[in-house]
Every structure is written in C-alpha cells, then in structure tokens.
C-alpha cells in the first residue's frame, strides 16, 4: 500500500511533466547557465582556482534543486491538488516518498548533465577515475538535499513569501551535506585520488540521509495537517 501509493504519486508527476517538460528543461538550462557564470567568475589564466570544480558542481546542484523544488510545488499549489492528495485515504508518508522520488529523478537528470559539463569546463575529469565513489557521493548528497527540500517545499506551499523562505529555511540545514559532498569530490580530484577520505565522506552523507529522511517521514504528517 505504502509503496504503491508512492509509485502512483511519482507516475502522476511524471505524466503531468511529460506533457510539457517545462520543469525539466528549465531546470537543466538553469543548471548549465549557473555553471557558466562560475566558469567566467572563477577561471584565471585559463585554469580554475584550486578546488573550484568540486564546489561549483555542488553549488549548481543546490541552486538548480532549489528552483526545481519551487517550480514543482508551485504547480501543486496552482491547481490545489495538494489538498486533494491530502484528502486521499493514503498514508501521508507515502505521499512524501512519491514526491521525493520525483525530485530525486529530476535532480539526478540534472546531475547527469552537470557532472560531465563541470569536468569538461574545469579540467576535472579525474573524478571519473573512481566512478563508483563519485556516484556514491552524488547519490548521498542528492538524497540529503531532496529529503529536506521536499519537506520544506511541501510545508511552505500555503505560506506567504514562500519563494524566498524556501532557500532561507533550506540552506542552513543542508549546507553540512554540501560540505561533505564538496570535500568528498575534492578528495577524488586530488592526485592521486584520496579514496579513504572520499569513503569517509560518503559515510557521513549516508548518516545525514538516514537522519533527515527519517525525520522528514516522521514530521510530514503533522506539518501537512492544519
């Protein structure tokens, strides 16, 4: 019942999105422009400064993610479908999980584009030498970001000033995830790749993910009830 509901929510979101691909295309394009701005801001003498590649990748992920969160839930608010969803006789946590999976898919798609782009523009192809570790870092960080982001975006749907409140509330909470992601990616980019450090950061990220997903599942129900 739980996973069936979550799956249905995900299918609904994908079906709606497939009509116009609006959120996907705008998010992807924003991610690319974000990286380009950093490319122009941080490249000196044709090379990027220090660990810039790792930082830029994660900044682009968090900025595109914030935008995507806002757009996705704006759609829900516009059509008042969130209230309809809440009225359905389904466990609230399943609704959250469905929304989370949708956000993960969207951000995952963005990362598929972002990682090669950053590697290309900042001469950072060294991170592909350990693809499993890189995937682990990205997965851990994305789950952490989306877990908290989906919760906050959903609870802000009916608040005033929601557009600016989302980053205000979200960023302080997920910056530890970003730190872990950047440090781990930077470890992979060092020569030779620092595997133990990267593995340690993946451990930290997984710990974050477990804590935050559990917390989000637990608090989703009372937050959505008013």
């Amino acid at each position, binding site marked *: 019942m739980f996973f069936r509901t979550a799956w249905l929510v995900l299918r609904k979101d994908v079906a709606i999105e497939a009509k116009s691909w609006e959120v996907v295309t705008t998010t992807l394009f924003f991610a690319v422009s974000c990286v380009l701005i950093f490319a122009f801001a941080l490249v000196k003498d044709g090379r990027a400064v220090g660990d810039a590649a790792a930082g830029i990748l994660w900044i682009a992920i968090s900025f595109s993610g914030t935008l995507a969160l806002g757009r996705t839930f704006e759609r829900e608010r516009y059509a008042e479908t969130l209230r309809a969803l809440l009225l359905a006789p389904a466990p609230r946590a399943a609704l959250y999980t469905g929304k989370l999976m949708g956000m993960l898919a969207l951000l995952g798609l963005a990362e598929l584009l972002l990682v090669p782009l950053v590697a290309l523009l900042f001469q950072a192809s060294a991170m592909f030498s350990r693809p499993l570790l890189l995937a682990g870092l990205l997965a851990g960080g994305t789950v952490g970001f989306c877990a*908290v982001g989906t*919760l*906050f975006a959903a*609870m*802000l749907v*009916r*608040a*005033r*000033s929601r557009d600016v*409140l989302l980053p*205000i*509330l979200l*960023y*302080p*909470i997920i*910056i*530890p995830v970003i*730190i872990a992601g950047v440090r781990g990616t930077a470890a992979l980019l060092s020569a030779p790749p620092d595997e133990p450090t990267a593995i340690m950061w993946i451990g*930290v990220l997984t710990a*974050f993910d477990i*804590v*935050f997903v559990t*917390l989000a599942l637990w*608090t989703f129900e*009372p*937050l959505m009830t*008013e």
Partner: protein
Amino acid sequence: MRKAFGPIAVLAGVMLVGAPIMVARAPYESTMGLVQKIFYFHVPSWFAMFTAIGVCGGASLVHLFRNNPRADRIAEAAGEVAVLFGLMGLVTGPLWGRKAWGVWWQWDAKLTIALLLEMTFISGILVRKYGGPGSDKLAAAVGIFGLAVTPFVYEAVNIWRTIHPLTSVVPTLPASMGAPFWFCVAAFMLLMVLLLMVRVNLGKRQAALDELYLAYED
C-alpha cells in the same frame, strides 16, 4: 514558575557581577596570555545556546505532534534566546581568534557549522514573522531540524583538521581555571533561563491579546 523569577533574577545578577572578578583572578594561559580570558564568556555562551536549542527542539516536537500552544510559546522564546547567545559566541570568538590565530574568521568546521546553526534559528524567527498563518508549525520544523544538526557540530572539531581548540580542553582544565569557568557556565545558564521566562511571558501576553481580539469580534 513565576514565583521563582525574583530569586533567579537576583542570583543571576549577583553571579554576573561576580564573574568578572573571578575571571580577573584566574591565571593566564601559557600560550595565549590575556586574551584567553575571553574563553570564560565565549564557551558558556555556546553552552547556553546549545541548551536553548535543545529546549527549542523539544518544545517544537511537542507542539508539532500535540498542538500545544504553550510549547509553541516556549519554542518561540527559546529560538530567540538561542539566537542571542549564539550572537554572543560568534562575536566573542573572532575577537579572541584575532589575537590568538591572527585572523578574524576561519572556515574550519566548528565555526562554519556554528554560524549555520545561528542562521537556522534566525530563519525560524523570520518564518514566524513573515510566513503568514500556520508558520508556527513551520518554525517548529525548523527548530527540530536545527536540533538534529547540532550533534554534527560538536563532533565536527574531532573529525576535520582544525586550529580551534579541541573539545578535550574543558575536561582537562586545571582547578584554577576550572572554578571561574564553571562559575560562568552556571551564571550564563541562569541568565538563559531568566531571559527564557521573560520572553515566554511576553508570548503569553500576546496570546491573551489575540484571544481578546477574537472575543471582541464576536
């Protein structure tokens, strides 16, 4: 609770006047000299902030799951008090660091995450102010998530490389430094409780005013 206010206020006042005297008589630290004495106010402010965060998180949990307006008032007050003591820590720290390390700020983990906690609870205040109806629940969620991030702060010093003194400094304090330190900790905790009580009282009066308005509408 109200009866305790007077005695606590007097005790806190006495302790806060006595604190500088005790601090002045404490010995100097061998490598950092005079400026290390900021420690006696810096660390207790952080202790007070963490306690306030704990109170805020606990009250937020109660309010979120039990819909208790008193818990909501306590969470709101504790959030503000946490921001106050965090601000003290964030200002006294760089003043100490300027002399001891030569720089005002360092992007090492403990400082960074301490700043993040401060920002989290400021965002909680902002959401209460500008979030419109229902923002008490949102602020409660922020309080809970802020609390969940706190353990990572304390461990941060021991995981990353850092020039910030380790958390093992406090347990190994010699008695001549320990006495004024724990005195200041007690003084700050009392101060925090005091401010919390005053702020909760304000919340109660505001709630009473709202009730009056609602009754008046009828």
